[in-house]
């Protein structure tokens, strides 16, 4: 399904396609980590009483994680969308559980841009929005070009100060 047809046919902002690479590679890292267990186990001569050898077991697990990671990266990219609305930041995300959040600008405490090592290699950045809420207290918008991230951060900061009200 195409991203962003919620909310009365308004097209949501999508992320940069390269974010799929970030997500996929980060799950590949964890897959490699799991596979590493199997290799180490094999080297040390660990064998389970029943079932396959450590290499097959953890290798299989790693393969499943890797495949799922790639599939989810693609799906997640398709779902992800955000938009700056009149009074709130509107976000749609989630592959299995679809989540739609509205963060009123009044409630934004501060806004960060963040660039992890993986994001930096592919030239992307994230914006993190902090609220005082207990759930989703920090909301991350990933997969933005650095310029766009800075823009979004500045825009959110402006909107937050415009509508400032301290009522915690």
């Amino acid at each position, binding site marked *: 399904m195409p991203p962003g047809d*919620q*909310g009365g046919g308004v097209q949501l902002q999508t992320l940069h396609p390269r974010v799929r690479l970030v997500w996929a590679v980060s799950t590949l890292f964890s897959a490699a980590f799991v596979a590493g267990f199997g290799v180490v186990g094999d080297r040390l001569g660990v064998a389970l009483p029943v079932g396959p050898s450590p290499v097959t077991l953890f290798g299989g697990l790693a393969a499943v994680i890797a495949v799922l990671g790639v599939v989810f990266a693609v799906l997640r990219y398709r779902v992800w969308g955000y938009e700056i609305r009149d*009074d*709130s930041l509107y976000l749609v995300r*989630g592959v*299995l*559980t*679809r*989540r*739609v*959040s*509205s*963060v*009123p600008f*009044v*409630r934004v405490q501060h806004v960060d841009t963040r660039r992890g090592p993986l994001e930096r290699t592919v030239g992307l950045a994230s914006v993190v929005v902090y*609220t*005082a*809420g*207990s*759930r*989703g207290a920090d*909301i991350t918008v990933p997969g933005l070009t650095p310029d766009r991230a800075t823009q979004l951060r500045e825009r959110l900061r402006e909107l937050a100060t*415009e*509508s*400032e*009200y*301290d*009522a*915690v």
Partner: protein
Amino acid sequence: MRRLHRLSAVLDAAQGGLQLGSAALFGSFVLANETGFGSGDLAFLLAPAAFLLGVAYQVAYYYRFTYELTDEELIVASGVVGRQKREIPLERIQNVDVRRPALKRALGLAVVNFETAGGSSTEATLDAVDTAEADRLQNEIGPRSRRSKSTERSSTAAVTGGAASERGRADGVDESATGESVTGTTDTPDLQGTTDTPDSQGAAHTPDPRETDEELLYEVSDHELRVLSVVSFRPGAFAVPFVGIPFGGEEMTRALLGRLGIDLREGVRSLAALDVLTLGVGAVGLLVSYLLAVWMVSIALTYLQYYDFRLERVGDELRYERGLIGRYSGTIPLGKVQTVTVGENVLMRRLGYAALGVETAGYAPGANGGSGSETTVPLGARDRVLTLAQKVLAASDDTGRYEASETFDETTDVGEGDDSSPVVDPALSSPEPRARKRYTRRYLIALGLLAAAIGTATVVTTLPTAAAAVPVVLAPLTPVAARLKYRHRGYHETAWSLVTRAGFWRRRTRIVPVFRLQNVLITRTIFQRRWGLASVTADTASSASIVGGEAVIYDVNPERADEIRVSLLERLNAALAERKRAALAGETDEEFEWVGDAEGATDTDESASESPGDVSETLSTDGAAESSERPEDSSVGPSDGA
């Protein structure tokens, strides 16, 4: 600069010394036994040295720990090697808790905790000071921080003339007097008497109005305490029966099992030799006795915890006190209340009781490290609890909008078996009817998975194959369970708040003031999407939601969910705009001023005040005190004028 109490230094020194000493003793013995390094004699050298080290550290800690309460902040300096100095602005302190665990209580000591909104951990702890000092801190910091703000305010108000506020107070008294006569409560004749001369009364109160402004809101009677102990199942108690095992519990269990023909020493394998009936009886017997033990422990713990529970209103704060062996007390500023929860477990519902939870930002009173249940009033007759919930909600909104918008305009709603409390117990809208089918399906799937798991287990172990049939037996019950789940879920929207309810075993009705909302979140799990359903979570800064207690509207149509989201956001913005306007206008004494202001009134005054938030807070605390005075005086009697 003050220090902690000397006795606490002695306690800590003894504790630190013993800890380090015993660790050294144990360590050197292990070392001697395992590696042969050193002999056992080493322990006799090392242990006292470590003991002294521990004592020395604690003594040093005592001398390096100072605190000071100034007009604006609490300053705590601590640390033996790495020094730390913390300055906490008083108006940022949300709660002051005083804890007197058994031993410290016996020595006349108390531990004082200070909580702020930021972070989940305690901001500062004074462990320990004497009881009088603890009371002083608790008394001073609450009203004092607010008074410092009210002086700020009075400096601005002085321009417009202090007479206005005086008039407001007199009006309030007048109204309370009329309210008294209307409701016809017969108590507090002295209040009636003083209200005849409002001026003199006002004058008498002006020196420090907060100090004398106390009111006992709730006291748990002996009967209620017994009921509470019996009906409340504490999750923490489930682990406790195992504690008894080292002290003969093992023998008892073995004897019990032996009577049934089960010998644990032969291992689980012998279970297969038994017929299903014996096994079943044994399992049920074990479970029942376990639950009984849990229940007994739970009764004892609850009794100890909530013995002599009192809830008071002191100025614009709630203060509770409880405990038989250890004594605990804490404060909840009414102006910082995020959500109010009415909790009723299945037994309490039967007997017509309910519990009340009041949550503030970053801290849930009563939730001591997650072990206690998060309750402000542990148990009370349902209608009394609901009335109290209303009062708390009314006091939490300084604009007085709560009373105006909903206190008595929804009397037509009939809650479950009780129609006296409209707002906190309204008739709720149910989730979509098809959600019931979804729950049935969900339980069936869960049972199926359980059966499959047991089935797999029977192949690997010697468990009888018939065991896999046990979950199947429960299958006919799933529609009933689904129905109960469905019936106890619901939501209700009012102009001022959102009410959500969920849970059959422990039903929670949450009331979220709209102006406290932080985020609105719509979630649709993969299963919900199959059924075309969605859930809406209304998130506040309340800490209770970290433990999973969120206000969630379950299983409505996605379109409806979106409507709710939009309407919540709109109402949030409208409410905040109103509050801001009221704050800037500086006239919260006239509570109903907002009614006149229409939506479209342009609010471009942001630049007029540099920090509108501060102004509003300044006003809010005063307004809360005054707006809360009126309904409470009129509805409950015993406001001790003395």
